[in-house]
């Protein structure tokens, strides 16, 4: 069952990455929490992060903002998939060790 299904997972991952291609179309309005923080006057309490890697889902150094957003989305989706897969592998290994 493992070999034939491997390609399915590749397609599924590509499909998830395809969602990232749509990310430049996302609404740029403030989200629910930001809206409430603006309305109730505590938005200025927000502090800047102590370091920045890919702030605001825009990959630094890429001139075209839509492309920079798509690249940020693809990098993030792959990072998250890799981290989750690694954690799942770890959980399976300790399962086998029990």
């Amino acid at each position: 069952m493992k070999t034939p299904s491997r390609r399915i997972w590749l397609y599924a991952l590509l499909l998830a990455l395809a969602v990232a291609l749509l990310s430049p179309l996302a609404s740029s309005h403030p989200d629910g929490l930001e809206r409430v923080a603006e309305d109730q006057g505590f938005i200025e309490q927000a502090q800047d992060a102590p370091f920045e890697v890919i702030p605001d889902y825009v990959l630094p150094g890429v001139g075209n903002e839509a492309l920079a957003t798509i690249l940020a989305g693809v990098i993030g989706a792959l990072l998250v998939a890799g981290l989750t897969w690694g954690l799942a592998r770890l959980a399976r290994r300790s399962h086998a060790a029990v």
Partner: protein
Amino acid sequence: MHIPDGFLNTATAAATWVAAAGGVGYGARRLTRTLEERQVPLMGVTAAFIFAAQMMNFTVAGGTSGHLLGGALAAILLGPWAGMTVLTSVLVVQALVFQDGGLLALGANVFNMAIVGVLVGWLVYRLFSRLLGDKDWGRAVAAFAAAWLSVMIASLAAAAELALSGASPWGLVLPAMGGVHALIGVGEGLITLGVLAFVRAARPDLLALGAPSPKQEGAA
């Protein structure tokens, strides 16, 4: 509803870090006992999808937007413990790499969205599925209710943390957060239904993965 640093006071940030660490640790122990080999790739793909979908803000009303949280979706596809791991991975990468959600506030964000969001989604889905029986419309109602309530309860948890921190009074922040997330929750419900319908059409076998199987040690 990713809380940035600065909104929460030290006591609330510390308490939610402890609660998040305890919840994620407990979930990880349950995961090592229940995770099946065939779920491993689905966890990775679900995490990638939820990350990408969280970037897709949709407008709800009056210049406000929301996006999928995915807690109910992950719980329905994978079960609560794998779902919790998926959402935690997404939130950790968002905080560390994308500066979405604070570092001191990461405990609160994991508590609200990975623990509360996933567990509420899972419990509501189980309850409604049992009440409505094994019919297509029953499962759809259960998934919508699970998605909507998971967003609502997670937003009220965030509101409570803001009130406890003195950012805004209880009487203002609870109804405001609940009100806007009642709308965002409708989007959550529709996207969750759409994804589940797609998975059911493409790979109906995957939808059984989140269900507690009678023999966890069955031959894979």
